[in-house]
């Protein structure tokens, strides 16, 4: 089947982002070498993100609401499966990526100028990475999934090392690159073995073939799936594959850290869910037991390690590992239900909703950290935040809301999101995971509230002062409103996530 105009229409958000990324490179190159004014470039990139958002909204009206069946795009000649797919699930995740990218652009504008990192490429790379994330969410073929993962990762390796004269930034980029390349190699190996076992790289074919292979003879499929799950666990930084994350997160420029812990995590989970629900479509492999163990280790490990951190960025890095553990609880529920009766509507909407809430609250928290950062002294120690509740009440209130939401305390988005995940876990008979999740959330309250306590209960004479930046303020206001809105009125968005998950079936 040749390529039809509909294929281009369905992939228009990705194409728009790629087009704007290229345009940004041209605009940046026109300025030549040397420092430049970042405002027009940032404005253009935000315009590109808005255009892609408009395309996502139009596509949602057509394919997301369930009126028209999901579309398989770019089916190559010769009987291979479609490359990508446009359905409600993809569009919900597209919105998460665009939200993360937009907030990153907003908080980075002032930061890049203060840190003397006036690189126009920053915004182009953010757009390319976002396009890669969208491809990851919509990939229907393991090879396309791998390629889109690389599109996203290569852009992020560069972003991590953006501060070229900063040793930590170099360390971060190098560690991220080596682990990324290593886990991609593991992924390729897994894909090759799964191809050997099932005879296809297309996810629907794999799901069909996997149900016919019986477990005793499915050793090739077993090893292949194990390698793919391992590689994806590296990408989402699940314990025990998380060692790279704190160093990579700490060294990268703070807006990049924010982007990594929200957008990248969302993209990896969108891909993980689709691949896991195909590989483990029927009970040929005891997948839930393995994912159960990883989820438990990640929740416990991430939260315990976060308690002893003294650096805010490292603390948020471990917290992001812990949140990957909560998300894995949703994945366990989804895979369990998939293996029981083949449906994909349990757990997956909760993962999507959690990622929206998590993106808002993490971006908000990082926006506050970014606000205090300046050249030579980034003020990243937890002690540095002592007493700002008295001097800068607006920032302190916003920061407190984000931290309470991360801890999962009502009436914030974090509570509703966790509630959804644990409800699905209980509904599929994984009450033990829900109990571990709640207990580790209690541990997390300690390290999140420690910051709040320091801000309001310790007065200091000298302290840090933020540099006012309208774009960062806007990002904080948007995420703060989102966190409270989703906490108080989660219904409408929850409904969207559920509709999206209903169109996920293939």
């Amino acid at each position, binding site marked *: 089947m*040749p*390529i039809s105009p509909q294929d281009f229409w369905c992939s228009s958000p990705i194409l728009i982002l790629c087009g704007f990324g*290229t345009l940004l*490179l041209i605009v*940046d*190159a*026109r300025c*030549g070498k040397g420092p430049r004014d970042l405002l027009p470039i940032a404005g253009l990139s935000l315009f590109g993100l808005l255009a892609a958002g408009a395309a996502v909204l139009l596509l949602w009206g057509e394919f997301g609401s369930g009126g028209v069946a999901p579309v398989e795009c770019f089916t190559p000649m010769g009987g291979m499966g479609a490359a990508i797919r446009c359905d409600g699930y993809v569009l919900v995740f597209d919105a998460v990526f665009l939200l993360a990218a937009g907030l990153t652009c907003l908080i980075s504008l002032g930061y890049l100028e203060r840190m003397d990192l006036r690189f126009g490429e920053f915004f182009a790379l953010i757009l390319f990475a976002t396009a890669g994330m969208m491809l990851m969410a919509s990939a229907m073929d393991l090879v396309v999934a791998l390629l889109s993962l690389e599109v996203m990762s290569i852009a992020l390796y560069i972003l991590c090392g953006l501060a070229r004269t900063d040793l930590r930034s170099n360390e971060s980029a190098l560690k991220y690159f080596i682990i990324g390349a290593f886990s991609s190699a593991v992924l390729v190996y897994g894909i090759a073995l799964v191809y050997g076992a099932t005879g296809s790289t297309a996810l629907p074919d794999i799901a069909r073939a996997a149900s016919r292979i019986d477990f005793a003879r499915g050793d090739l499929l077993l090893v292949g799936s194990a390698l793919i799950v391992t590689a994806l666990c590296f990408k989402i930084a699940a314990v025990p594959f998380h060692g790279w994350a704190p160093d990579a997160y700490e060294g990268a420029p703070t807006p990049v850290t924010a982007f990594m812990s929200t957008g990248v995590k969302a993209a990896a989970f969108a891909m993980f869910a689709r691949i896991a629900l195909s590989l483990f479509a029927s009970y040929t492999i005891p997948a839930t037991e393995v994912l159960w163990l990883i989820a438990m280790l990640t929740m416990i490990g991430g939260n315990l390690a976060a308690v002893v951190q003294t650096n805010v960025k490292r603390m948020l890095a471990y917290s992001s590992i812990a949140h990957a553990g909560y998300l894995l609880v949703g994945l366990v529920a989804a895979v369990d239900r998939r293996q029981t009766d083949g449906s994909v509507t349990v757990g997956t909407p909760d993962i999507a909703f959690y990622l929206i809430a998590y993106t808002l609250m993490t971006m908000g928290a990082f926006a506050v950290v970014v606000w205090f950062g300046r050249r030579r002294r980034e003020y990243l120690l937890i002690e540095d935040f002592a007493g700002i509740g008295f001097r800068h009440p607006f920032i302190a209130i916003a920061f407190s809301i984000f931290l309470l939401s991360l801890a999962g305390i009502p009436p914030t988005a974090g509570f509703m999101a966790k509630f959804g995940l644990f409800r699905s876990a209980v509904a599929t008979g994984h009450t033990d995971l829900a109990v571990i999740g709640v207990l580790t959330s209690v541990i997390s309250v300690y390290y999140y509230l420690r910051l709040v306590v320091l801000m309001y209960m310790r007065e200091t004479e000298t302290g840090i002062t933020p540099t006012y930046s309208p774009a960062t303020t806007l990002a904080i206001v948007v995420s703060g409103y989102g966190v409270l809105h989703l906490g108080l009125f989660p219904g409408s968005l929850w409904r969207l996530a559920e509709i999206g998950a209903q169109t996920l079936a293939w």
Partner: protein
Amino acid sequence: MSPLAQYFPIAVLVLFAIVVAVFLIGLDHFLGPRQPNPTKLEPYECGILGVGTARQRFKVGFYIVALLFLLFDVETVFLYTWVVLFMPLGLIGFVEVALFLFVLAVGLYYAWRKGALEWE
């Protein structure tokens, strides 16, 4: 035919390669005049000595030039496959290749403006 028998042509090929190589090197050994000098005896006559510390420093410019070379090398590979299927792919193929070349041109323009082609 036994499973191994189908590899017979490969065995012939391997044997043939060995015979040709030994024959040519032997011919050179017996017939060729030899007037060695130090430069001729180096593994590579032009380039960096093959013996010495491995921790030699390269100018980073080499890598950028190598990358740009790779870019156009890969471009040629893609263009050849397109040429073979020019007629069946039709207009869509042409548009896609044009887009591909445009993206490459943007990359070259970017590298040029950023001074990647200046050697000092």
